C-alpha cells in the first residue's frame, strides 16, 4: 500500500473526537509504522505529535496533553492516498465525527 507515485498524494486535516488509539490501530492495519514522536507547543497548548509513515505516505497525529478544557481536540493530518484518507474518515464517522 505504501508504493505508488508521489503525485497521487492528497492533503487532508481532520479534527477528531475519536480516541486516537483507535486511529493508531487502523493505521497499523493499513501498514503504517510509528516513525517518531515529539512534544509540540502550539496555540499555547502542549501536544504529543506522532508521525506514522508508509512509503511516501505520512500521517501525523497530534494529541493534546496537560490541562485542557472539557473536550480535547486531537488533529489528524494526512499527506496520503485517497484510500488512506477514506479509511480514516470511515473510522472517525463511527464516533460521530463528520469529516467533509
Amino acid at each position, binding site marked *: 500500500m505504501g508504493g505508488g507515485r*508521489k*503525485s497521487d*498524494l*492528497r*492533503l*487532508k*486535516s*481532520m*479534527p477528531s473526537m475519536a480516541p486516537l488509539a483507535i486511529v493508531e490501530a487502523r493505521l497499523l492495519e493499513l501498514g503504517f509504522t510509528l*516513525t*517518531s*514522536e*515529539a*512534544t*509540540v*507547543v*502550539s*496555540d499555547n497548548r*502542549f501536544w*504529543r*505529535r506522532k*508521525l506514522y509513515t508508509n512509503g511516501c505516505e*505520512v500521517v*501525523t497525529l*497530534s494529541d493534546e*496533553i*496537560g*490541562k485542557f478544557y472539557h473536550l480535547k481536540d486531537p*488533529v489528524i*493530518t494526512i*499527506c496520503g492516498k485517497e484510500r488512506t484518507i477514506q479509511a480514516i474518515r470511515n473510522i472517525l464517522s463511527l464516533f460521530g465525527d463528520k469529516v467533509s
Partner: protein
Amino acid sequence: MPSYDCNEHQFVENLRRILDSKLRVIVNRMIVQRDDGKYGLSHLPDQEFKKYEVVAYRKHQRATVYAKVPFYDELHKRLYMQDDILHSPKNPGRYHLSIPYVNVEYRFTLWGETYRHEFDVLYEPQIRLDRKEIVATKSEKKVALIHVLNFIPPPQHVLEIHLPPSTIVFDVCRLSRV
C-alpha cells in the same frame, strides 16, 4: 497586508483548498533553534514532566521545581545540587533550567493575504548516570558518579508539515518587508 494566524488544522485545510482549485502555491518555512528560557520545567504538563522526574520534583504544574538529586546539565554546563530551585514561575529569570526548542513557522501568501502557522518542538531530555569531575574546593577536584541531563534535538521530519509535491516549499531564515 493582513496576516492571519492559523492552527495546524486550519493551515493544512486552507492549503488543501488551494491545491484542490489547481493553484500552485509557494510555502515559506522558517526553522530556528532557540534556548531563550521560554519553556521551563514548571510549565510542563504532568505527562511531559514525568521525563524529568529522576532529577526534579514539584507539587503541581506551575509550582516551583526543585532538584531531586544532584545532577549536571550538560547543555548549559551547570551543576545543580539537591533541592536547588530549577524553575520558579514567579521568578523565572533567576533560577531557570530552560528547555531548548525548535521554532517552526510555515507561511504562504495568496492575493496579498498571508496565512501562517507557528509551533515549537521541544528537545527531548536524556538522563543518564555518568562519571564527572567535580570541583570540591578551590584546589581539589574529585570524580563522582552523578546524574547527567542532556537534551536531544527533535528529528527533522517531526519539524515538517508533510505536503504533496504540488506544493513548493522554500526554506527561509528571515522575513523582511520592503
